[in-house]
């Protein structure tokens, strides 16, 4: 297995306009993220609204300019790649956007939508009817759907059309931004099964952006947890779920109540709300909400600690052997 995508210390900075009381400045929506995706594997990026996960995905897809750092795709540097060059790469790196219906043009038929990539990439000599049929079959939709329009299909079907369109040109890397948000649980499973099946069939690498940890658990090989534009924990999915180290990961896991009224929940409750990215807290950025914060956390930035198949950024990680003695 070789590395398909290697992200090193990527920073995406946005300028903010000054208001009456604030001066103009900049925010780092993504602030020094490093991670690696191997060919044919799935990587999940989890975080709450404003954690920078979508910005990171868009930077990889070339839709945002990374201010610093490096994004290597099969050894080729993507940062500062001219748009004309990037366009060729969009055969291989494709993105599925969050809003399934909104990302489909209402005036195009499903056939036009899923064969649009061929036109955009100037691929001639294909039988577009046959391609549409092949793609619809691949995502489990009947061929009649080719003649329909986006308003005639359900949210779950619109997602399938989004998958078909993304996979039209046989890409290597699929970036899926919240592929199951807003879907009913029964359809959510269908969508994840579809992605898993297509990955096995096509040898696709997938980067899944989501706020739902239970989605990540079943489909990903590795997972990264983001908070305020930084990774706070990253590792093999099994390891992170079995032995989460960062208190934020613990809180996210606990915030996913089980459908069992008697479930004994390890409640790690967070105080308050995420701070504004304009005023990043000093020290560990999570200390303002962390139930285990100590004076050191407000003063010193914790280092990125790698241990085995996982890594985290915390002064006082959950030590599973002595977690009994710990008080919130």
């Amino acid at each position, binding site marked *: 297995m070789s590395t398909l995508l290697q992200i090193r210390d990527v920073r995406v900075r946005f300028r903010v306009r000054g208001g009456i009381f604030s001066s103009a400045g900049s925010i780092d929506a993504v602030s020094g993220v490093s991670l690696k995706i191997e060919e044919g594997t799935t990587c999940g990026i989890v975080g709450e*609204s404003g954690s920078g996960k979508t910005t990171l995905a868009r930077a990889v897809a070339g839709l945002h300019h990374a201010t610093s750092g490096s994004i290597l795709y099969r050894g080729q540097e993507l940062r500062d790649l001219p748009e004309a060059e990037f366009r060729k790469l969009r055969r291989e790196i494709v993105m599925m956007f969050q809003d399934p219906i909104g990302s489909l043009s209402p005036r195009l038929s499903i056939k036009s939508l899923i064969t649009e990539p061929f036109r955009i990439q100037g691929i001639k000599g294909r039988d577009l009817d046959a391609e549409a049929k092949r793609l619809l079959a691949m995502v489990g939709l009947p061929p009649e759907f080719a003649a329909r329009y986006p308003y005639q299909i359900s949210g779950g079907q619109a997602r399938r059309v989004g998958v078909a369109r993304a996979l039209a040109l046989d890409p290597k890397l699929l970036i899926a931004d919240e592929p199951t948000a807003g879907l009913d*649980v*029964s359809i959510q*499973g269908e969508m994840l099964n579809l992605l898993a099946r297509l990955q096995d069939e096509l040898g696709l690498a997938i980067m899944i952006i989501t706020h739902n940890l239970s989605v990540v658990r079943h489909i990903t090989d590795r997972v990264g947890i983001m908070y305020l534009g930084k990774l706070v924990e990253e590792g093999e999915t099994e390891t992170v779920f079995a032995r989460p180290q960062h208190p934020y990961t613990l809180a996210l896991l606990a915030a996913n109540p089980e459908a069992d009224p008697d479930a004994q929940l390890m409640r790690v409750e967070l105080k308050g709300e995420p701070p504004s990215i304009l005023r990043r807290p000093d020290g560990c950025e999570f200390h303002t909400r962390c139930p285990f914060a100590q004076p050191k956390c407000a003063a010193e930035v914790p280092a990125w600690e790698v241990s085995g198949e996982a890594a985290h950024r915390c002064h006082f990680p959950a030590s599973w052997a002595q977690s009994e003695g710990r008080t919130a």
Partner: protein
Amino acid sequence: MAVLDILDLSVSYTTPRGDLKALRGVSLSVPQRRIVGIVGESGCGKSTLISAIIRLMAPNAQIRSGSIRLKGAEILELSEAQMRALRGAEISMVFQDPMQTHNPVLTVGRQMIDIQYRDKLSKTEKRKRAAGMLALVGIPDPEARLNQYPFEFSGGMRQRIAIAMALMAKPALLIADEPTTALDATLEVQIIKRLRELQEEVGCSILFISHHLGVIAELCDEVVVMYAGEVVESGSVRDVFHNPAHPYTRALLDCDPGHIKVRTRNLPTIPGNIPDLVHLPQGCIFAGRCDKRHDACAARPDMATVNPSHHAACHLIAVRETA
């Protein structure tokens, strides 16, 4: 006596294709000081049910039969003026999207004072109550924050303000329509905990609508499972979630990825689609997707008793009883 009693409610929408029978024979009740959850997927009729309870229905909706009683009084017979007196005072509601429930050009304080228009209090007293209510839902520094506009609050805070406003008049019934869906997971937990505390403090009943089974399990005392416009199962949260009697409830619980402890690349799903509610299928509404389907399912099942407080509309229960 129950705060809310719905009996055999049927609601249809007139559409060019014919009558869309969105609710058919729905019965449920919300006892005093209890939290009742309604679960169901898109198209199960949750929203139609709420709009019927507060009588804010779409122009093409018609109540075909049934009754809705609030503290014993029939809501469906009230005049529009009487209904208006009830909304906000006896029944209040928290909506799904906290970003759009407030007036963006008025301060939060002004909006919270305005909705106390029924009370004969001075403005200072009303302001004080508003601040007290904000403090109760856990907004720090409430006096100062009354002068702020909705955009100055985050989504989680706006939803808490919406809850504060809904509880201001100490209603008998609070309807919460997916109040945490638009919020992040860690904030969802905060809101749910706060709702529970407030319910105990204010002493109201809550009808809580959600498609998130975990949230229902955490918050509610009782749960009603709806499918394609019918109640298919109801009972205490413990009975229904531990011992689901209807195949749909079981399938729904199986699909919840949080439920599956062993890593799998093949998640359970419910094959098929919701039936067409204009041309209803004969017999059991879930039969087309049910893995336990048998001959009896050609007839519509009645609500059968699993235990005195646990009911489900499935032929298999009757079989189990006689066996």
